[in-house]
């Protein structure tokens, strides 16, 4: 009745596809059966990929149910890591680090310049659905500050010219 919050009933729901469940199962095999929650990050990533790059509360609930852990625990993970999205995103996700090293090296100017070029602020997507801009925490590349990430690639020692070149390469 009143246990919607703590309901640990296990099982599948129709929010995720059989394909997704099969992929999550691959990860579950790596952990002891009573430690299903170890697969939470992989499960979120797989589900996000399936759902055009972003998560919904339905997906989070479905994962919690499948891994038999409280939904709030899944939401904690999903909101802690900036790689998980909670709103629809563009084709290319530009993640600009604004943590200390990048900040000291002018990451703010990079953000300003992207705004000048694309007209989007952090958290926004261009009208054509091509680019999403994100402000992210340290990506472990302080040596190349200021830096940003698109897809799986890092772009370091950024200048407005480098940003121009990058944007023109992405389509």
């Amino acid at each position, binding site marked *: 009745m009143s*246990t919607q919050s*703590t309901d640990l009933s296990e099982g599948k729901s129709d929010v995720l596809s059989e394909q997704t469940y099969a992929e999550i199962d691959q990860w579950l095999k790596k952990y002891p059966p009573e430690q299903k929650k170890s697969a939470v990050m992989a499960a979120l990533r797989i589900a996000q990929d399936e759902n055009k790059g972003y998560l919904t509360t339905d997906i989070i609930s479905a994962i919690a149910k499948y891994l038999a852990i409280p939904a709030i625990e899944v939401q904690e993970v999903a909101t*802690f890591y900036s790689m998980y999205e909670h709103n629809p995103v563009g084709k290319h996700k530009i993640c600009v680090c604004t943590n200390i090293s990048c900040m000291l090296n002018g990451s703010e100017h990079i953000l300003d310049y992207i705004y000048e070029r694309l007209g989007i602020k952090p958290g926004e997507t261009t009208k054509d659905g091509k680019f999403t801009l994100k402000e992210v925490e340290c990506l472990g590349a302080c040596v190349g500050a200021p830096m940003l990430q698109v897809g799986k690639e890092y772009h370091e020692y950024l200048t407005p010219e480098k940003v121009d070149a990058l944007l023109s390469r992405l389509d």
Partner: protein
Amino acid sequence: MGDKKVTIEVNGQEIETQAGRMLIEIADEVGIPVPRFCYHKKLSVAANCRMCLVEMQAMREGMENPVVPACATPIGDGMKFYTKSPKAIAAQKGVMEFLLINHPLDCPICDQGGECELQDIAIGYGEGYSQYTEAKRVVKNKDLGPLIATDMTRCIHCTRCVRFGEEIAGTRELGMIGRGEHTEITTYLEHSISSEMSANVIDLCPVGALTSKPFRYSARSWELNNVDAIAAHDCVGSNIIVQTLHNKVKRVLPRENEALNEVWLSDRDRFSYLSQTHTERLETPMIKKGGEWQCCDWNTALTTLVAELDILVKDKKNTIGALLSPSSTLEEGYLLQKIVRGMGQHNIDFRIRQQDFSQQTLDPLYPHLGVNIDDISTLDAVMLIGSNIHKDQPIIGHRLRQAVLKNDTKVMAVSHRQYSFHFPVTENIIVHPQRIALQLAGIAKALLTLNNASAPTGLKEVIDDMLITDIQQKMAEKLQAAKRGHLILGNMIYGLEDYAQIRMLASLIASLSECNIGYLTEGANAAGLAIAGCLPHRKEVGKENNQDVGLHAQEMLSKTLDAYILLGIEPELDTLNPQQAINTLTASSMVVVMNAFVTDTMKQYANILLPISTPLETSGTFVNTNGMWQSFTGAVSPYKEARPAWKVLRVLGNLFELDDFDYRSSEEVKESIASKYTAEKFDNRIIWQEHLFENRINNVNNEPIRISDVPGYAIDAMVRRADALQDSLDMQIADKVLMNEKLAQVLQCHADNIVEVEQLEGSGKFIVAIDESIPDDCIYIPSAVAATTNLAAPFSTVSIKE
């Protein structure tokens, strides 16, 4: 680790202790102050606030001394720490400055002001000015339900509330989402917290982010008077502090007692005080004259009462009965039975929700849990029979959960309804209530086989043809293997028609598996009232009166007596069969109601209404399920004309001119029982009664029957009038009828439809909910809620109409 002794030095002071403990524990023990926010002795170490940084002597020559968090630094031999060195203080001040960056510093409008850990520590370690000139962050408040108010901008993310949910409450409802500056404490999709111990996060919160919603803006902590008291709503007897202002109860807080409630308190014990000023409080004595109610003074009320009863008593054929709440105090119970017995009668009972009294002479002196509450963690197997332990006795539920987590205790359950326990249940038998005895017989058979023992006389015929199920076999094996196994009879079991058989079988199982057995009971003082002699078959301290056994609760409520005295109960809610209780009482010519509250229903059957104190307004004693006698004083004076029930009963005793009624205080009343009482160690197991199974074990007919229990916030008059508790998620069940899909199809009931449930001559309207945890042929309808006051006893047939 373990017992290895080591010596450390803190601020030059040598301390000998066990290796591996955290520095902060040792500092606390010897009284060296270390500031902290996230550390709490009852929770795991998070080390995320960094306020407890102290300087540690470097391990190697030439290395700079590090600063380390005292809460997360396990000590080893020869370690040296400085908690007040310039380096330690600089670190602490630095952390303080960061913590205050986003804190709103709105102490003047914050309820936590004056009892705030952040405020206290900021005085010691904060600066009078801030270097921070940027905008502070603002966090949206969360709706956590009717008990907990939130001001999330004040949160410093210590995560005590999150760890409490995971480690103590056992329901992980609060969490920390986001990261860095975007971190927020919240629930998933923002819902009310369902834990029955949720409000402990108010005490845990070191700032004003989580405060008491009912208390909000009503007083300042330093204005309040503290009175030590005992919680009045379960058989634990949690220790509490009642905080009052201008003779009003403002707040109730836990009082630390390691043997009972530790530092915790159930929400029920914390918020029941809200009923103190409920509109239904009875203000003055009242008498019904010619069908009209008239207010009167105490003198008139009591002399009328005595005159009326005296006439009845003179004729020896007349019968007078007294029914009292299992939460009445020892003193009240003792005086009431003394009056009843002074009139030459033995009709007194507090077991108002029990159905089967056939073996009452086998009852122990008082219902005892059979294991000390603080020893529950040493049990290695526990079988709960008919217990919703978390809602019925939240503190014992918590203790059992800790046993499961720390001692790997195996918990098994046999019940008529699947409860959501906050711990894993290894074996679960959920059956039609009339099959519970059969299930226990199956477990007993498995144990007999394991022990190569033959069945006791009378049982052989019953179990001969029985097949032992896998689950019964496993339960038997677990109990047999347990070094310290325990069976617990829960609140629901007393309402069953074959309670005597069930208890006998449970006792047999306990004997065969060399386990112990214990009782959990309704109310705060079932044990005390048994000792006080509030039983038809026993006088005070268990003296049997075999020649002259009085009527038990069901007898008193099934045939109308000439007069009734009702103390602290609302029979339309508190008895097993409300319909019958009301009919019986209405037919009686004299019903004296002693209660703190009054309702229209009460006015229908009562002839005299006497306003009495709530447990917060009277002195008295509760005896808990471990036999602990705990006395308390009234925190506030009684409401309007209400008087402590023991005083009213004392005066009544005098007016009836009964002997030995010259008590000047409740202590003297208690003393007169205590002087006759010798605490004895007893075994709850009972001697085999062969005749009990002559009629075999129940046969189930296939008609759907009503199953029931009392929701946690419906248990007594006070709790039912604590509005904040009534608004909680748990009470959403109050107007529901639950059944499984299979039965719903047979009865053609659909979820969310309103149906009329009929039982004998009464009916009630309920909303259908489909619940697969309800066994076949069972219809769950709660007891002790407004919608069921016209219904008859649970565990009998009902019919349902759309």
